[in-house]
């Protein structure tokens, strides 16, 4: 699992089966110091409470679909938690 920041949402009214009712958010992957790292991904919001600007952690690959009520769906990234605090032993920020 990795840290990410929600930077937008995706509206897609035409979807493949099993994706109805799932909120899709654009997530910018972050490094451990919460700096942008890599290209944004579209993730399903499995906590249904994430909003733009929020720090989250997300799971990728097969486990992303496991986070959703319907388990065999075409999802490869899912937000599984909102992050309140990250405490590092060595934090330059």
């Amino acid at each position, binding site marked *: *699992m*990795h*840290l990410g920041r929600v930077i937008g949402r995706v509206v897609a009214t035409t979807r493949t089966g099993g994706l109805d009712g799932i909120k899709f958010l654009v997530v910018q992957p972050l*490094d*451990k110091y919460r700096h942008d790292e890599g290209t944004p991904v579209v993730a399903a919001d*499995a*906590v249904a*409470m994430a909003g733009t600007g929020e720090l989250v*952690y997300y*799971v990728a*690959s*097969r*486990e*992303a679909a*496991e*986070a959703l009520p319907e*388990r065999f769906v075409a999802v490869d990234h*899912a937000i*599984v*938690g*909102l*992050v*309140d*605090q*990250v*405490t*590092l*032993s*060595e*934090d330059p920020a």
Partner: protein
Amino acid sequence: MKLAQVAGTVVSPISHSFFEGQRLLLCDLVDPDGSENGYLIAVDVVDAGVGERVLICDEGTSARQIFGITTGPIRSVIVGIVDDVA
């Protein structure tokens, strides 16, 4: 499995039900020589402490087996504390 060093803790008050009550640690992935190579957030089941070198199992089915479940969005689990890499 992957070698890692625990860099810190992650506090998540709102999460998928699987993660409620689980301890999340941010771990630097390290090469055997100690150089960093990215990071992972993993669930801790061995009471690892910050600064310790650990073994992370980063595979879903094995992770679910550790928790005795067949479904759940878990993939990265700290499964051991490393004493030495020779």
